[in-house]
């Protein structure tokens, strides 16, 4: 890895082979190239490294809630009280190391009583020692991470290990090498204590109102929620976010709580818009908001927020969006009817007809995707407009068992087939059959689809389930869809 230091390309980090070849970090790239023409060079990306480390750190939440970044290139996990969940400290360390190594990382770890000691032990492999204290005392003085001159001066003075240093009076050390040296020494020996700064997810926005006297009217409570929504909206603006989910909880003085949740398809932070949704939800409650003896606390939280660029409101010329978009309609209808009731269709890559689409809640899904038509250009529709799920069985009269249908009975009506096209053979997903499974049993049977038209012009999509002879003796017929 190289980085640009004061106009010169210098080596930033090296792998083991390069170190073995005698290259050192800080060397200019030209020098290094002169020595090792085969050198493979990459641009250093400190921000990328930091980002990656932060993600690893967040992933370490599985071991302990207190996971912090350790200066530069490490992670510090506070495993007090967590180790027994993994049957011991060593097992926890092993699990974490295995997990990281599976991603191609080389991991060194150490467990110690203080964060500084663990930091030093992981970076400066010391000789084996009977206990932690002895191991720390055997660390070289560089483990104190003082300035380079101090470390050299310590070595000149004949102080090679931390233990040598600890044996000297602190006052003399402070006088010669400064307070930092003594602080670092004490931290390493576990005498001082520096707190960890664990990475924590940003808390959700939460606004509360407590009342000295319970509030007896729901309408007033809703007005207070509107104030709180404005406050939450300001906080969202500061964060550059908009809420996708809002929850208002009405706490009653007798201990009951009424949570009311709304969800939007686009991030919003406009208080009137939020309140419209809440009002919609409150109106559609089967159990009305009953104040009983009064509400004594209200809480508004934003459990889910998405980035939202600041918008320019009505300034001179600039005009806020006057008419509400379709999203607002979708939100309102989803809140009133239920979020799964307003749907969007999403294509799925499958040749099994009923699996080729998914109906997702429109509130949730945003990006419309393209649909690839089935069949050649210029053809009439090859797929029906309506699909029956499950397909409906029909009685079919065909000339031969594996031939096209002649007439069929569906919903007690006899249909005479005048035109047909097919079969379009759709095979089951054989790759999902387990070894040894009877063919056609675990994954379904082959379907032969026919596009047919009856004497009155109605077009249907029907299929024969199973290959005659090979898969079944009596293939059943089903109607799967209606064409326009």
């Amino acid at each position: 890895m190289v980085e640009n230091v004061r106009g010169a390309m210098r080596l930033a980090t090296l792998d083991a082979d390069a170190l073995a070849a005698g290259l050192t970090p800080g060397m200019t790239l030209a020098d290094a190239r002169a020595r090792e023409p085969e050198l493979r060079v990459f641009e250093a990306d400190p921000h990328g490294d930091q980002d990656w480390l932060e993600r690893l750190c967040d992933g370490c939440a599985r071991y302990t809630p207190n996971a912090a970044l350790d200066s530069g290139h490490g992670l510090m996990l506070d495993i007090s009280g967590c180790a027994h969940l993994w049957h011991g400290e060593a097992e926890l360390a092993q699990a974490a190391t295995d997990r990281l190594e599976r991603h191609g990382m080389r991991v060194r770890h150490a467990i110690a009583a203080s964060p500084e000691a663990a930091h030093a032990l992981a970076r400066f492999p010391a000789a084996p020692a009977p206990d932690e204290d002895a191991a720390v005392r055997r660390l070289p003085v560089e483990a104190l991470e003082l300035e380079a001159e101090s470390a050299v001066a310590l070595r000149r003075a004949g102080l090679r290990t931390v233990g040598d240093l600890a044996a000297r009076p602190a006052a003399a050390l402070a006088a010669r090498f400064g307070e930092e040296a003594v602080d670092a020494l004490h931290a390493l020996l576990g005498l001082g204590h520096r707190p960890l700064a664990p990475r924590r997810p940003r808390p959700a926005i939460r606004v509360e109102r407590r009342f000295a006297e319970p509030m007896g009217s729901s309408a007033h409570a809703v007005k207070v929620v509107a104030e709180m929504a404005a406050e939450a909206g300001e906080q969202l603006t500061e964060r550059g976010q908009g809420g996708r989910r809002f929850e208002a909880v009405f706490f009653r003085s007798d201990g009951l709580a009424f949570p009311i949740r709304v969800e939007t398809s686009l991030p919003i932070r406009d208080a009137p818009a939020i309140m419209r949704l809440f009002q919609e939800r409150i109106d559609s409650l089967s159990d009305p908001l009953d104040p009983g003896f009064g509400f004594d606390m209200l809480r508004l939280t934003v459990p889910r927020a998405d980035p939202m660029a600041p918008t320019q409101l009505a300034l001179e010329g600039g005009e806020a969006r006057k008419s509400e978009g379709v999203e607002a309609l979708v939100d309102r209808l989803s809140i009133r009817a239920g979020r799964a009731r307003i749907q969007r269709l999403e294509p799925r890559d499958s040749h099994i007809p009923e699996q080729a689409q998914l109906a997702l809640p429109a509130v949730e899904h945003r990006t419309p995707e393209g649909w690839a038509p089935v069949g050649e250009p210029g053809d009439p529709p090859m797929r029906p407009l309506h699909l029956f799920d499950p397909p409906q069985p029909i009685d079919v009269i065909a000339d031969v068992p594996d031939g096209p249908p002649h007439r069929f009975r569906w919903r007690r009506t006899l249909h005479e087939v005048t035109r047909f096209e097919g079969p379009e053979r759709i095979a089951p997903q054989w790759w999902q059959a387990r070894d040894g499974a009877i063919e056609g049993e675990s994954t379904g049977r082959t379907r032969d689809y026919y596009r047919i038209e009856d004497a009155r012009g109605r077009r249907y999509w029907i299929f024969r389930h199973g290959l005659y002879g090979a898969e079944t003796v009596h293939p059943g017929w089903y109607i799967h869809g209606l064409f326009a």
Partner: protein
Amino acid sequence: MSESINSLAALKRHIAALDRTPAPTVGCARLATGHAGLDAALDGGLLRGRVHELFGAAEEEGAAAGLALILARLAADEAPLLWLRTTASAKAGGSPYGPGLAALGLNPARLLIGLMADDAMLLRAAVEGLRCPALGALLIELRGRAPLLDLTASRRLALAAEQSGVTGFLLRVGGDPVPSAAETRWQVAAAPSDPLPGNAPGHSAFALSLLRRRAGPDGLAWRLMWDGEKGAFGDGRHERHEHGQDGQQGGAPLSGALVPLPADRSAADRAA
């Protein structure tokens, strides 16, 4: 006495104000269907910002829903289209199928589907939808007699559509035409398609008859053929005449402006 007369007059004025026709700027645009005969008979096309009612027998559901969707898509252009139906409809008539919609040239990505629990909720949502001007068009599917859709309810829908300019299509599957405030009322059925070589079913064809129109003659019938790729209606029959089997009719088109289709459609069957 004079007091009561005054109040009566005030009330009448109030009612007149309530019932006034909307400003002519809104809702006078016409939606050309692209079918020459149909557009000519409708003075240029279906009125936008109105509610149009399409009736189809229960067994004609595919055709009726297909034509209603096509018309709604034409009205919506590129704007989102909302299709409101009930869970009972989905159970009885199947659910909309994306690949099939795409094959008809109706982009499923611009379609929203609302599955409502019952007709009452559906009609409430429909009024709400018709009030949202960002919506391209609204398709309201009702099954059976739908007693909740009375004159009041349909008038409410029509008013909402007139105010916002959103065109509404009421799809009545298996319902009998009853008086309503809809601008036009149509009967839709499937028509035998123009067969492809090998006697395969061809492009979607519809038999459409105008049952009633607020201003203008009714009782007309057409045969429409929809080409999803071109996104246009055609008469069919003309370009594919050599494949047809209606030699005995000398190629006289079954449909065309002002040629009524017999109710029992024996002509259609004979021609097929």
